[in-house]
Every structure is written in C-alpha cells, then in structure tokens.
C-alpha cells in the first residue's frame, strides 16, 4: 500500500458512489433510497475536496462547492422527506414500486 493520495480518494469516492447506486437500484423503500442518494452525494463531495486538495491547492472552489452541495443536500433531504410523509399519508406506503401515478 502506498501513501494515500488523490487516486486513493478518487477510488474510495467511486466505490462509495457505486454502493449508493447499488442501493438506489435494489431498495424499494423511499427513505432508504434517500439514504443511497446521500451516499452518492457524499462521494461527489469527496471528489471535489480531493481535487481541491491535490490538484489546485491554491484555489478554494472545491471547498465551496462542497459546502454548497451540503446545503443543497439538506434542502433536498428536507423536501424529500416532506414528500415521503405526504405520500405515506395518501398511499399508506412509501414503497417506490407502488407510487407510479403522476397524479395526486
């Protein structure tokens, strides 16, 4: 094992992303889907930070992008949960396979 650097973090991020993706495809519960999405978002953040750290250390874009993504993710999570709860009220279920209609 060599000294961890950019490629290690990129690999980690890719693995994490694919884990999230796997979860997104296999899960049926909307909350777990949301969790998978969070995983993927985190992997992206990792990427950004890694580039910021190793490729353009003199700049700060990566950092700020990560910050904004976290903010957006928070908003998204809040909205998603609002939708989930609403869906639960109307359908008595939050199974994504059962929520197919575009109405309601």
């Amino acid at each position, binding site marked *: 094992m060599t000294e961890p650097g950019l490629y290690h973090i990129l690999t980690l991020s890719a693995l994490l992303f694919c884990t999230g993706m796997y979860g997104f495809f296999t899960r049926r519960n909307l909350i*777990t889907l949301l969790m998978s999405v969070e995983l993927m978002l985190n992997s992206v953040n*990792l990427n950004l930070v890694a580039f910021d750290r190793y490729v353009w250390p003199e700049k700060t874009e990566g950092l700020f992008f990560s910050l904004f993504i976290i903010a957006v993710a928070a908003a998204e999570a809040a909205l998603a*949960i609002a939708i989930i709860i609403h869906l639960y009220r109307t359908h008595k279920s939050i199974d994504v396979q059962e929520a197919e209609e575009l109405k309601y």
Partner: protein
Amino acid sequence: MSGSDLVFYILALMTLCFGVLTVTSRQIFRAAVYLLFCLLGVAGIYFWLNYQFLAAVQIVVYAGGIVVLILFSIFLTQQSGEKLPVPAVSRKFFSALAAFCALALVLVSVFRFSFAESGKRSALVSMSQIGEKMLSPGEGGYALPFEVISVLLLAALIGCIVIAIKTKPDAR
C-alpha cells in the same frame, strides 16, 4: 506505512463498510444508523485532509441534521420491527452489474487520466476567510451562489410546508 496513512485506510474502510451496510441492511432503523457512521467516516476523511471547517459542517448538517430528519421520518412512516423486503436475486444481480460497470468505467477513466498533482499543500483555510469569501461579491467571492442557496433553502422550506401540510379530510 505511516500512522497518517493507516488512519486514512481505517477511515476509508469504515466509510465503505458502513456504506455497504446502509444499502443492504434489512432493518431500516439500523440502516440509518449505519449511514450516520458512514457520514462520520467521510467527515473523518475531511479532517484527515485538513478541511476542518468542512468536516465540522459535514458532522453538523449531515450527521446532526439530515440523519436526524431521516430517523424522524422513519418513526413517522414505519411500523416498528418490520423488516424490509429482500430484493429479488435477479434485481440484485443486475444492480450490482450496473454498479460494477459504472465503477469500472469511472476507475478506468480516472486511472487513464493523469492528473497534474501539484506538490504544494494547501494553506489551511481559516473560517474567517471562508466567511469573507462567502459574502464577497468581487473576484473569487461567492455572494451570488450564497444568495441563491438561501433562496433555495427558503423555497425548500415553503415547499416542505406546502407538501407536508395536513389537508382537512373534507377538502379532498
């Protein structure tokens, strides 16, 4: 292998393991807890990379905010003790295949591309610097995205209320 390296590997392993557990666990409450640990692992990596502020934000917003939200929604929507259904084997297989393909593609392209790593270590960005940059409208400032994000958050706030508001039974 230095201690620092070891820390990285441990953090990485922890992140991955909890990540995998998050997506496979059949008990949703546990999945949420695994997610929490996974996110903490990511925060650790930020620390390891010397991005303390980011790590702090990660812990506060993700671990403290989002995961708690998720837990609440689990409480609100889930009967206790109910296990999540096992996905079909074929589904698992194809999802894994897809994920693997994506992984392979990403890794291949990442390793085929040689990034021009700069040897310099980034200067530690202090919180005050971040704050100034965040609110500076000039060159290198992020005032506009900041405002946009705040509007977005407001919109999300209102949206949440609108969506989740309880409709009166006779209104339907």
